[in-house]
């Protein structure tokens, strides 16, 4: 599945077996999964902490409002980040 195919109504969530935690040593968020750890940048953290059943559109709108950012640019960023995580099997869509 390519980035362009993620629809606005898709609901992203962490893939099975993946956990989002705060690394108490660095205070940064990390994804933990079998035999792996990924440190998240701020964008990824902001997106993933909103992957609680909301649609992609809802997440983008919420972020755009909070950061007063351009909706289209933000939507592209969110799609890029999520499709990268999807490719690494850390995020899935329902």
């Amino acid at each position, binding site marked *: 599945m390519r980035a362009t195919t993620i629809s606005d109504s898709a609901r992203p969530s962490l893939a*099975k*077996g993946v*956990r989002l*935690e705060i*690394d*108490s*040593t660095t205070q940064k968020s*990390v994804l*933990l*999964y*079998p*035999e792996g*750890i990924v440190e998240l940048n701020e964008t990824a953290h902001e997106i993933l902490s909103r992957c609680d059943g909301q649609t992609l559109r809802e997440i983008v709108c919420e972020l755009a409002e909070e950061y007063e950012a351009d909706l289209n640019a933000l939507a592209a960023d969110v799609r890029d980040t999520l499709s990268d995580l999807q490719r690494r*099997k850390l995020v899935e869509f329902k």
Partner: protein
Amino acid sequence: MKVPRPYALLAEITYRCPLHCPYCSNPVAASLGEAPRRPKGGGYNNGELTTEEWKRVIRDAAALGVLQIGFSGGEPLGRRDLVELIRVAREAKLYTNLITSGMGLDDDRLRALRNAGLDSIQLSFQSDESSLSDEIAGARAHDRKLDVAANIRAAGIPLSLNFVIHRRNIDRVAQMIDLAEALGAERVELANVQFYGWAFRNRAALLPTREQVDRARAIATAAKARLADKIDIFYVLPDYYETRPKPCLNGWGRRYLTVNPNGDVLPCPTASSAIPDLCLENVRTRDLDWIWEKSESFNRFRGTEWMPEPCRSCPQKEIDFGGCRCQAALLTGNATNTDPVCEFSPNRAVVDAVLREVNLSGNNARDWMYRVNPFSLAM
């Protein structure tokens, strides 16, 4: 040099195991040598850490920075307190992996583990079908493992199938991948045997031929591409056939620590047997953070200062860290030497001699010696 923080703890909670795999990485001396030290005042009478001692180790590890814990052994299900230890690890926010043969994992136990928050299970298989698998395990295990795998799937816990690959099963890599697919595993590890512990003792029987290795690699590479959307396939090469060493542990005392059943803290699980002069610290007598930061054993090969030539002036030294200290010790008698797998090692001839012997032996592979248990305790 600034001491890094650890990321993962391997908790070897017991050396007891119902299987007798001849490639086990546990120290041979744990079974054939002297009995382990007895703990003062209560606890497991075979020298194993008590439940309270393990809880402290887990919390101390989390405070040090550890994010992942692997419960291993031996067979970790042999400890009745496993569920409790997993609960404590989850409370400490650790990602919890169970590395198991599956023997003794009935429905009640599985449910209890899931409810305690177990994140993932790595289930070992010896091969893809029962006759060869059971022969390798030295026990009737394969058919029960199939049931256990199905139950793990039903419980919704992420499943990884772990195969140790060697001369007797390497020709069945394709069927092993088929099995992982059929059982619905998310992940499969096809790891060529590494020669430590029992595997080092049984090396002549376990090391595959070059022809076998080339064939298996091609099969695994093709399957990886074919199943990319379905299963993560990890194929670990047999390092004797490589020309550069593996980046063992991603550097000594840099990311990983192991605590063995008796509480010894190891930079690497095989270091106690491979590097006998390493003075090991124990969680009963020292704090974990002191051991990680200050002990001689964790600092001996930390960083790059300890390196001899050809590592010292090698541009790869921050990439492979000079390879494996245990392998250097086992094959050259000196843990400080460059891993002799490296083509630049002055001791590479030792590895080549082993390969020559195996590749000339045709079909006359040697017999192996099965691993025996430390004690005749019933599981």
